[in-house]
């Protein structure tokens, strides 16, 4: 069980947990209380994934001859 706060998760981790949550919910073997809890968690995971997809801005850096790492995202 992942104890991290959803906002710390990478997209990959969040997606994986979301898929597991859906599988559990679809199994139909849960008590009502559990169902509701899982649903809430699943919702926040889905929101996290979607917001990461929407707000993504690719960062580009390059190693210079002096050994520095320069941000060239704008170029």
């Amino acid at each position, binding site marked *: 069980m992942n104890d991290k706060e959803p906002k710390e998760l*990478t*997209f*990959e981790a969040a*997606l994986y947990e*979301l*898929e597991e*949550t*859906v599988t559990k*919910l*679809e199994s*139909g073997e*849960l008590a*009502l209380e559990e*169902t*509701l809890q899982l*649903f809430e968690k*699943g*919702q926040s995971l*889905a929101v996290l*994934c*979607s917001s*990461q*997809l929407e707000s*993504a*801005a*690719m*960062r*580009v*850096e*390059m*190693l210079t001859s002096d050994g520095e*790492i320069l941000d*060239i995202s704008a170029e």
Partner: protein
Amino acid sequence: MVRIDLLRYSENTMIPHFEQYGLEDQVWSVSDLNGYIRELIDIDYRLGELQVIGEVSNFSQAKSGHAYFTLKDDSSQIRCVMWASFAKRTSIVPIDGDAVVAHGRVSVYEAMGQYQLYVERLEHAGRGDLAREFEQLKQRLADEGLFDPEHKVQIPAFPVKIGIVTSADAAALRDIRTVLKRRWPLTSVLIAPTLVQGKEAPAQIVEALLWLDGRNDIDTIIVSRGGGSMEDLWAFNDEGVARAIFDATHPVIVGVGHETDFTIADFVADLRAPTPSAAAELAVPDIGEMAEHVQDLNQKMVKAVLNSFHQNRVYLDGLLRSLGNLSPRSALDSNRQRVDWLSNRLERSFDRRMDQAKNRLELSEARLAAVSPISTLQRGYAIVKKKDGSLVRSVAHVVEGEELEIHVADGGFTATVE
């Protein structure tokens, strides 16, 4: 030219020591002469490291691994020897008639009075030989297992950071950036720029790979350059580059040249891409597809929960229905029966309880009796009291002639102390 150089050397006292060659008589022994000539040649820095182009003839390789051949041009030739340690490392096996460039030094085989070229590295000089060199290296590395599928590592599905080895100002980098940004802007990119053709390119490519591979924030490495001729792409056929790709701990995608170009780097890569753009596409997922997938999962989730509620509701309804199945008449009848049955149970239960209570009482009585004074007395003990009623527990409590009261189990009497 040589004369002038010798004069220069003598000014700097760099010439071999005359004395050791026993020149008092100015008659040299052969050994001394050859030794002197050898020293003369070994001193010359230009002969210490050079490249000679020529045609191979009389090539032979001894069991020891040492290779012997002659290099010649239109009017001259020179004997060559390549020690086994160097011959093993070279990627070409020359045959007579080949045009080669030999890297090495000139020295003298004293015993034979022969100056020779000691070759350390050989490469093909002509264009057509490039293809053969390529095939030979490819075969050698394949035999070593460098291209085996078992060694290929899976490319991560969602890389957080991608390292790129490529030229800083060429189209390949622009193409890669465009594709990555369009498909998966969640990733970030770190470029280690290098030359991608020419003599210095292989070393730079290896260095860039090592640097990226040594970092702990990289998930995938792309090695890439745009299209070109066989010579242009030659750096990616370099053995050092191939080994660096093989040894890299991170997955490496190679996208060099066009679809039909295959370099050694392509064979040793964890994943080969036909072009730089294709390399970028293979490195990341598509954002549109992922967004749809998340939506899909969301919908599935909602459906599953609604379904769950529905199921629960159905169950509840079922319960209520079966309860309602009891009609009023049948309810009354069954009530009567129920009362009888209940009262029976009650009686039986009461009886049982009474028995239990009786048992407990008897038990307590027995215990009580065991510790009561009455039973002690019954066993023959007596209670002795003074006239004032206090208990006599010790002989010290009584005096001669005193009257005492003795109590036994069934009564009491007086007694006088003697």
